């Protein structure tokens, strides 16, 4: 009698537990789907506001894809201008070329500064530094990630710009190099953290094998550990690139925001993200200008998406190749 009651109790307890387990699992699953749905919805919203640039006849009176990307004959006959961003004008001009070029210039400077220094710092902390030094460097570099970009932007605007101008004698005090260096500071912790994780994940046995063959510490780090961790390091660089393309506050404050079409890095630049930040608050709802700004948003979104996708694909390929070599 009593054992029967006990069994029932056990069964019901087990059933309740299973029920609870199921509930928790579904709840977590719902959260995961929610995150994906949110991203999809954001993209749908941005794209919906952007599509009139492609299809609406009313918008086409002012701006077409041709005007966004191809050379136009603006300016005076003596001083023709092919690419102009002047959305508030008697004849609005919406060439995206100066903005794309500006984004590219700043991002290049940032990556040239951040990628080598962050990767070398990661190699140093994992392979050479003594444990206590490692414990000191790691949190400090990661602290860089915690600095709000407004603060970095302000620092670049007030201190860095004067310093760089004194050093290189730039015409423009606020320019692509200045914004790029400040952005590099924001990107370093991203590349560093991911590279450092990848290097740490390389099995001890690799290093031991290298030492057994008579390799020095430097040779081990450079020829064995770094190649093995390369996929992770590469992922860090790609993610850093994505962050740099989308970064807004630093470029808004430190780049001068002049939409100039040139490859001169000493000139002021206007980036895609800074243009959205500076102009969206004011623009007339539903106007061609408004739709073009959302078009830029879609462009940025797609760019970072493709970058991340490409990055992870390359990482996968590299890893497969490395594993093949290992076997």
């Amino acid at each position: 009698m009593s054992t029967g009651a006990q069994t029932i109790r056990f069964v019901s307890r087990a059933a309740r537990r299973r029920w609870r387990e199921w509930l928790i699992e579904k709840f977590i699953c719902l959260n995961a789907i929610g995150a994906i749905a949110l991203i999809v919805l954001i993209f749908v919203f941005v794209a919906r506001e952007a599509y009139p640039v492609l299809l609406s006849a009313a918008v086409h009176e002012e701006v077409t894809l041709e005007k966004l990307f191809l050379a136009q004959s603006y300016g005076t006959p003596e001083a023709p201008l092919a690419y102009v961003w002047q959305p508030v004008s008697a004849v609005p001009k919406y060439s995206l070329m100066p903005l794309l070029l500006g984004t590219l210039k700043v991002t290049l400077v940032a990556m040239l500064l951040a990628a080598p220094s962050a990767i070398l710092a990661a190699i140093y902390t994992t392979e050479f530094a003594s444990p206590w030094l490692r414990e000191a460097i790691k949190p400090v570099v990661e602290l860089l990630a915690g600095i709000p970009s407004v603060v970095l932007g302000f620092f670049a605007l007030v201190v860095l710009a004067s310093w760089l101008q004194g050093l290189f004698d730039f015409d423009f005090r606020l320019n692509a190099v200045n914004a790029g260096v400040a952005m590099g500071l924001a990107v370093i912790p991203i590349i560093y953290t991911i590279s450092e994780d990848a290097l740490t994940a390389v099995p001890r046995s690799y290093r031991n094998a290298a030492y057994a063959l008579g390799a020095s510490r430097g040779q081990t780090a450079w020829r064995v550990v770094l190649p093995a961790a390369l996929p992770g390091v590469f992922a860090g660089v790609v993610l850093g690139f994505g962050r740099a393309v989308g970064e807004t506050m630093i470029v808004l404050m430190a780049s001068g925001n002049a939409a100039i079409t040139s490859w001169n890095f000493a000139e002021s630049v206007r980036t895609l993200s800074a243009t959205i930040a500076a102009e969206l608050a004011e623009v007339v709802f539903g106007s061609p200008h408004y739709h073009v700004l959302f078009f830029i948003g879609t462009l940025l979104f797609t760019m970072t998406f493709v970058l991340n996708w490409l990055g992870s694909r390359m990482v996968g390929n590299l890893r497969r190749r490395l594993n093949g070599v290992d076997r």
Partner: protein
Amino acid sequence: MKKRALVFLLVLLLGASLLPAQQRNITVKGSDTMVILGQRWAEVYMQKNPGISIQVTGGGSGTGIAALINGTTDIAESSRPMKEKEKADAKAKRGKDVLELPVAVDGLAVYVHEMNPVNELSLQQLKAIYTGGVKNWKEVGGRDERILLYSRENNSGTYLYFKEHVLENADFYPTAQTLPGTAAVINAVARDPRGIGYGGIAYGKGIKHLCVKSDATTPAVEPSMENVLSARYPISRYLYWYFAGQPAGDLRAFTGWVLSQEGQAVVEKVGYYPLPDRVRAEALAKLNAGESRKARASR
């Protein structure tokens, strides 16, 4: 638990939306040029009239006007006249005619670095400089150096005013660096011996104001109070307040005070220019027109 939290939140939201009505709140939003002026007015008026709360925020003339059209502000501050299309939008959305009142006078100063030997420019020269026709200070009597242009973002009333009145609606040259506020322009010019910028006279500290000539033959005029008020200085403008319909109650009282001798004294302290007496009388008449109409109707 969740439900209770939700109800609590709802009550809080409801309370937050009801409270300001009891506290007699006035919101003022718009031109970045006018933020300091609006805040000084609000401070002095709130000291005299406890129980009224006035919130002043910036964002640009266009932002303030958009807020007025959408009904999220009581007063829109603007450093440019409202466009006809915006007035029509406001009428369509709010169902009331927009009331426009000038509240102060501002001159746009042209700044250069204090070490720059150039002291005066004509409007034509300014236009040539900002549209890329003149690129070296030598061509306007300065040193043999490149001219670096500083401008404002295209959401500012200052940008539009300069574009209309100095550039005659031509486009700024692409190398013009756009900065987020007059203070930023002054800061940039103060650090750049080759730079030129423009903005409100009130902000002019640590740099040199140029004297401006209407054309090559007229004498250069300094942006001083008498010259701006007498309209001898060629780049001056009115600063406006906009309302949806005739203001009433506290809003009317506050506006009336701003247009009084006392309110206009604040204008001078902040560094702008008070309205000429004739304009002030007209503005007061416009403000009171609604009152007398209502009084007549109730009689």
